[in-house]
């Protein structure tokens, strides 16, 4: 992965950059996400997210929300109504809870970043009832949230907190490969679900990577 050009405070403009970056990285990885979902699902995760974040881009062109939370709320509502798969309610809930955690703050500080990621993770767990090890996106969000919390407590900057989260999400996604799915469609496959990374965990890593890059955070 690369060092993003943009730097600066985690304000509404950062949130917009994050979402534009997500739309781009999802579009670039559309085929990958589809292939991952073909192996243990219904081959639509890349298509679902590309449609969803494509719709987000259109919304952002029209509207310019004034706080980070307002951006995330717009994203939540858009994903919810355009994704069509499990990722719709899951990411919808994640971004909605993240927005709520930020309140009307104009610039997100390091502990705000950690709180936002924890809220997103908790929202996904509340919505999907998966536990760590069930081979879902929870296996990327949980280490991401833990790493963000640790970094924030250790005095890292907001971009550094995001980078720690993104790296941990990436490692978490890779680590889903040997697992047997116990939630979502992939659970229909039983033991045959082992040997493939979970598509939602991989897309989670991409989304958090985009967040870090939009903040100028260095992602390993």
């Amino acid at each position: 992965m690369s060092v993003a050009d943009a730097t600066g405070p985690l304000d509404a403009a950062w949130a917009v950059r994050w979402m534009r970056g997500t739309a781009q990285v999802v579009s670039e990885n559309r085929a990958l996400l589809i292939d991952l979902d073909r192996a243990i699902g219904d081959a639509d995760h890349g298509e679902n997210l590309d449609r969803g974040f494509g719709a987000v881009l259109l919304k952002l062109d029209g509207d310019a929300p004034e706080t980070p939370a307002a951006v995330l709320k717009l994203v939540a509502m858009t994903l919810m109504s355009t994704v069509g798969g499990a990722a719709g309610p899951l990411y919808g809930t994640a971004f909605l809870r993240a927005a709520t955690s930020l309140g009307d703050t104009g610039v997100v500080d390091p502990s705000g970043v950690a709180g936002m990621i924890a809220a997103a993770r908790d929202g996904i767990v509340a919505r999907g009832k998966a536990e760590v090890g069930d081979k879902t996106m929870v296996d990327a969000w949980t280490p991401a949230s833990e790493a963000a919390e640790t970094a924030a407590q250790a005095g890292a900057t907001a971009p550094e907190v995001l980078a720690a989260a993104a790296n941990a999400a990436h490692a978490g996604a890779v680590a889903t490969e040997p697992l047997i799915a116990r939630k979502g469609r992939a659970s229909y496959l039983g033991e045959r679900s082992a040997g493939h990374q979970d598509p939602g965990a991989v897309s989670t890593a991409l989304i958090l990577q985009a967040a870090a890059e939009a903040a100028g955070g260095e992602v390993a």
Partner: protein
Amino acid sequence: MSVGLVIVSHSRKIAEGVVELAAQMAPDVVLVAAGGADDGDGPSRIGTSFERVQAGIEQASDGDGVVILTDLGSAVMTAEMVLEFLEPEARDRVRLAEAALVEGAVAAAVQAQGGSSLDEVLRAAENAVVSI
């Protein structure tokens, strides 16, 4: 007016078919198909649609409450998400059944046709025997 049903399926055909099947035995019950993902015009993509489920609940809610039936887990999550956006009074009159979609819908529709309460209709869905 009786309890209404919303049939949430990833497939538009399944949702519409369940409605036509259940309607045979429950001509006076409001049965709403909320199937497929919403892509504006064109044939319905496989998936679920927040808006269709939301509109379905709205449409079914003139009677004694609404029971929602779903096919797969992502339909359940979509339905739960919609429920979170309802006002508390509206939310209280909606139940999400943990039931076999087709079999549960027929049993629930017959129960609703008989004028049963919201929780009786829910129970009929959840206790439906497969292949009666």
